[in-house]
C-alpha cells in the first residue's frame, strides 16, 4: 500500500464501518485509477507525495454526512442523529434570523422611522457608521433572515452561501480591529465565528434523503420568536438597567436552558422515538452554548464590572450544565436502545 492509498483510506474512515466493508476497496481502486496519468514518473511521485484533491475530500465528506446524518430510509441511529443535527441547525439559524429581523425593526425605530412609537431615549441614538467595514457589519447580519427562509424552503446551498455572507464581514472587521488595536484582543468573536462555521457545515445534513422541513411550523416560528425574545428584551433594556449585563453567550445559555426545561417537562407526553431527536438537538445546542459561555468568560476580566459579569457568566454556565447533563444522559440511553443498522431490526 503506497502513501497515497493510505491517505485516501484514512479519509474513507469518515464513512460508517458497514459502508466501508461493502464499498471501500472498490472506491480505493477507482480513486487510484483516477490519479493515474499514464506517466510512470508522475505516478511514482503521486504514490509517495500525492493527496486526494479538495473536491475528492469534499465528495467523501458529503457522502459521510448523508450516511451518518441519515434521512427517512436510514438506520434508526443514523436517522436520529440526522434529525438532531437538522433540528439544532434550524433552531440556531432561527435564533440568528429572529435577532437580525428584530435588529432591522429596532434600527428603524432608533432612526426615527417609526413615528407611531414613542421616541427613543437620547442615549439610544444611533451612531452613524464611521466606515465601510461598520456598514458591512450592520448589513451582513441581516443575511441570516433569507438564509433561514432558504433552509426551511429546502434550498440548502443558498442557505449556506447566505449564512457565509452573514459571517464573513464581521469576521474580517474583527480581525482588522484587533490587529490595529482598535479593540482589545478577545476570544468572544472568534468563538462565535467558530460556532457559526460549524452551523454552516451542519446545514449539510439537509441532503436529498432528508425529510422536507415542515414549512408552516418553522416559518411561523419566526414572528413568534421575535415576539417572545428580542421585543421583550429590548423593551426591558430600554426601560431599566436590569438586563444590560446579559450578553449574547448569556442569552444563548438562558434560551437553551429554558428550552431544555420545557422539553423535559413535556417529555412524558411524547413518544420516546419522537422525543429523541429533540433531546439530542438540545444537547448539541447546550454543548455549543456552554462552550461559547466558557470561552468568552475571560473577556470579562478587562471590563469595569468584571466581578459581577464573571459571577453572572459562571451562573449561566452552571445552569446550562445542570439542565444539559441530565438531558444528555437520557438522550444517550435512548440512542443506545435503538438498533445501529436496519439489518438489526
Amino acid at each position, binding site marked *: 500500500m503506497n502513501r497515497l492509498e493510505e491517505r485516501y483510506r484514512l479519509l474513507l474512515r469518515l464513512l460508517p464501518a458497514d*459502508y466501508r466493508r461493502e464499498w471501500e476497496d472498490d472506491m*480505493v*481502486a*477507482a480513486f487510484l485509477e483516477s490519479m493515474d496519468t499514464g506517466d510512470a514518473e508522475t505516478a511514482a511521485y503521486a504514490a509517495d507525495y500525492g493527496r486526494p484533491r479538495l473536491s*475528492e475530500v469534499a465528495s467523501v465528506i458529503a457522502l459521510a454526512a448523508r450516511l451518518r446524518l441519515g434521512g427517512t430510509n436510514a438506520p434508526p441511529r443514523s436517522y436520529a442523529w440526522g434529525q438532531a443535527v437538522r433540528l439544532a441547525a434550524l433552531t440556531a439559524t432561527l435564533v440568528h434570523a429572529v435577532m437580525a429581523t428584530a435588529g432591522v425593526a429596532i434600527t428603524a425605530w432608533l432612526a426615527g422611522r417609526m413615528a407611531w412609537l414613542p421616541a427613543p431615549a437620547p442615549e439610544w441614538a444611533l451612531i452613524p457608521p464611521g466606515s465601510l467595514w461598520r456598514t458591512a457589519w450592520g448589513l451582513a447580519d441581516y443575511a441570516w433572515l433569507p438564509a433561514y427562509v432558504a433552509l426551511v424552503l429546502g434550498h440548502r446551498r443558498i442557505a449556506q452561501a447566505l449564512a457565509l455572507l452573514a459571517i464573513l464581514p464581521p469576521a474580517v472587521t474583527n480581525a482588522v480591529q484587533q490587529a490595529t488595536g482598535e479593540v482589545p484582543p478577545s476570544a468572544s468573536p472568534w468563538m462565535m465565528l467558530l460556532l457559526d462555521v460549524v452551523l454552516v457545515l451542519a446545514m449539510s445534513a439537509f441532503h436529498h434523503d432528508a425529510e422536507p422541513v415542515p414549512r408552516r411550523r418553522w416559518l411561523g416560528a419566526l414572528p413568534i420568536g421575535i415576539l417572545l425574545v428580542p421585543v421583550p428584551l429590548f423593551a426591558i433594556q430600554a426601560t431599566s438597567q436590569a438586563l444590560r449585563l446579559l450578553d449574547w453567550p448569556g442569552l444563548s445559555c438562558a434560551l437553551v436552558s429554558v428550552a431544555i426545561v420545557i422539553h423535559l417537562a413535556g417529555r412524558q407526553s411524547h413518544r420516546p422515538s419522537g422525543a429523541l431527536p429533540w433531546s439530542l438537538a438540545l444537547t448539541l445546542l447546550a454543548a455549543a452554548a456552554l462552550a461559547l459561555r466558557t470561552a468568552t468568560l475571560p473577556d470579562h476580566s478587562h471590563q469595569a464590572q468584571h466581578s459581577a459579569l464573571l459571577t453572572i457568566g459562571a451562573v449561566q454556565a452552571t445552569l446550562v450544565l445542570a439542565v444539559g447533563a441530565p438531558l444528555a444522559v437520557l438522550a444517550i440511553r435512548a440512542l443506545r436502545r435503538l438498533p445501529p443498522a436496519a439489518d438489526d431490526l
Partner: protein
Amino acid sequence: MTEPAFFILTALLDAPRHGYGIVSDVAELSRGRVQLKIGSLYGVLDRLVLDGLVELDREEAWQGRLRRYYRLTERGRHALATEAERLAANARIASARLGERRSPIAGTTSS
C-alpha cells in the same frame, strides 16, 4: 432522477463498467459537464444498487486489485427509458413554444 444518476445509467447501457470507467464515460457523455468525484459516484451508485436499478456483473483482477464491474438491470433500463421519455417530452414542449414565438424575421421574437 438526478442528473448524475441519469448519466450513470446511460453509461451502463452498452456494457458493464467499473467505477472509474463510469466516471470517464459520464464525463464523455455529458461533454465534460458532469465530472463525478469518487465520493459522489459511490453516493449515487449505492442507491442505484439498493433500488435494484444496477447490479454487480463480475470482479476482475487489475494491477493487483479487484475491479468490480456493474451492469444495468431490466428495472434500471426501464427507469432510464421512462426518464429519457419525460425529458424528451419536456424538450419538445419548450421547442414548440420557442418555434411559435419566433418572428418571420430571422433572429427576432414576436411581442
